[in-house]
């Protein structure tokens, strides 16, 4: 049974149709890489799934419950968000909080977990991403890669059923990209369910169980990583892989 399913999602900004009926099916333990050229709607798709944008049409089935995008209540949105984690392209760490409090805030405020317990959890996840030493620093004192690893820890701390990554390494240089991808690979190995919007083809090929290729608001091709990279069927996909691999 799938953990998360998106049926026929549509989204337009004014007259610009960004998502034209997309279906996605994610099973527990899946790592789904969403690839595609800029402007294909990948990020919008991810933002709609977590209700940062309101989709015009379609439904989300999450953990057996169906939520039509146009009729979901604020309480339902909050329920779903409390069981998911989101990692942004530009980290979005809380600028006025230390690394520790960035991670604990979602636990202490949104879930009313006592600070001592939240701190133990925070230390645990910060250890996982290798950021335990910087626990009392502010985001502005960290490198981009470090900030993104803290952002991953923040998302992990709430024990989400699924993690969304929105181009998590696009703002980073190759070395910092590598350290973030390393953390993500570790999560995948631990069985974390993830949807990753990315331009990192290496990660998509080596880590993901499933690849979705989008262009112009539709899914052009999808399949398991090996088939997708070795035997793409659509001309658009072949062109994309040829251009990006060269």
């Amino acid at each position, binding site marked *: 049974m799938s953990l998360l399913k998106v049926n026929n999602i549509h989204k337009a900004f004014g007259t610009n149709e960004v998502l034209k009926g997309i279906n996605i099916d994610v099973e527990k333990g899946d790592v789904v890489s969403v690839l595609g050229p800029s402007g294909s709607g990948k990020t919008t798709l991810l933002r709609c799934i977590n209700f940062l944008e309101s989709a015009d049409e379609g439904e989300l089935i999450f953990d057996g419950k169906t939520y039509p995008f146009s009729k979901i209540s604020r309480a339902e949105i909050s329920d779903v968000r409390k069981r998911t984690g989101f990692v942004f392209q530009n980290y979005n*760490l809380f600028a*006025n*909080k230390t690394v520790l409090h960035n991670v604990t805030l979602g636990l202490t*405020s*949104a879930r009313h977990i006592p600070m001592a317990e939240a701190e133990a959890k925070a230390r645990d996840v910060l250890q996982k991403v290798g950021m335990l030493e910087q626990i009392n*620093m502010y985001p502005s004192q960290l490198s981009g890669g470090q900030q993104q690893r803290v952002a991953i820890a923040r998302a992990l701390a*709430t024990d989400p059923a699924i993690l969304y990554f929105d181009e998590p390494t696009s703002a980073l240089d190759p070395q910092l990209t590598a350290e973030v991808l390393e953390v993500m690979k570790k999560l995948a190995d631990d069985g974390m369910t993830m949807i990753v919007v990315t331009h990192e083809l290496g990660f998509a090929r080596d880590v993901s169980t499933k690849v979705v290729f989008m262009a112009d608001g539709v899914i052009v091709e999808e399949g398991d990583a090996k088939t997708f990279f070795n035997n793409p069927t659509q001309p658009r996909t072949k062109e994309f892989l040829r251009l990006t691999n060269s």
Partner: protein
Amino acid sequence: MFDQNTLTLLIDSFPKILVYGLKVTLPLATAAFILSTILSVFVAMVQYANVPILRQICRFYIWIIRGTPLLVQLMVAFYGLPLLGIHSNPFIMAVIVFTINEGAYSAETMRAAMEAVPAGQLEAGYCVGMSYMQIMWHIILPQAFRTAFPSLFNALISMVKDTSLASSITVVEMFTRTKQIAGQSYNYLPLYIEVAIVYLMFCTVLTYLQKRGEVRLGSYGVRK
């Protein structure tokens, strides 16, 4: 100008003026500043969150207050409130008028500061499951307050001096007290210079406090 008599007058009157500064001017400005800051946060939040109807009311409030002189507002309150059956001592009335007046200006400062907080902060809050009010309290307001702090302090410094207008509604504050002393001695200029120096002293202390406050509020690890 500065003969022996004037000098004696200045020395004698200094504590009298200062006492009214400490007893009336500063309490009036401080009370109105604190209340107006609280008011401004509410008015700014209503606009930031785009609450229907309340938002229009807030815009109307800001429009009226910013479009009329403080002195006129004091007069309208002084003669108008008793007609509505509200009788209060002039000091309280002055606190209310200064609060409402400054609240309108500070609300715009606060709103601008809140809008300067990147949208991603709000989104990140949502994504860890926080509610709108939780995000406001823990994330947006602290960052906005840090940004607004120098402007808010500007307002406080302005207000310390504007309290002299309260004399028009019979509040005997530092300036009125000076006028009284000057009237008794017929020696106006030296006393007005003296009270100007006392205002300057107050504002110097406030400027120092602002600097301390900025350091204390910190800049979240950004080295200056």
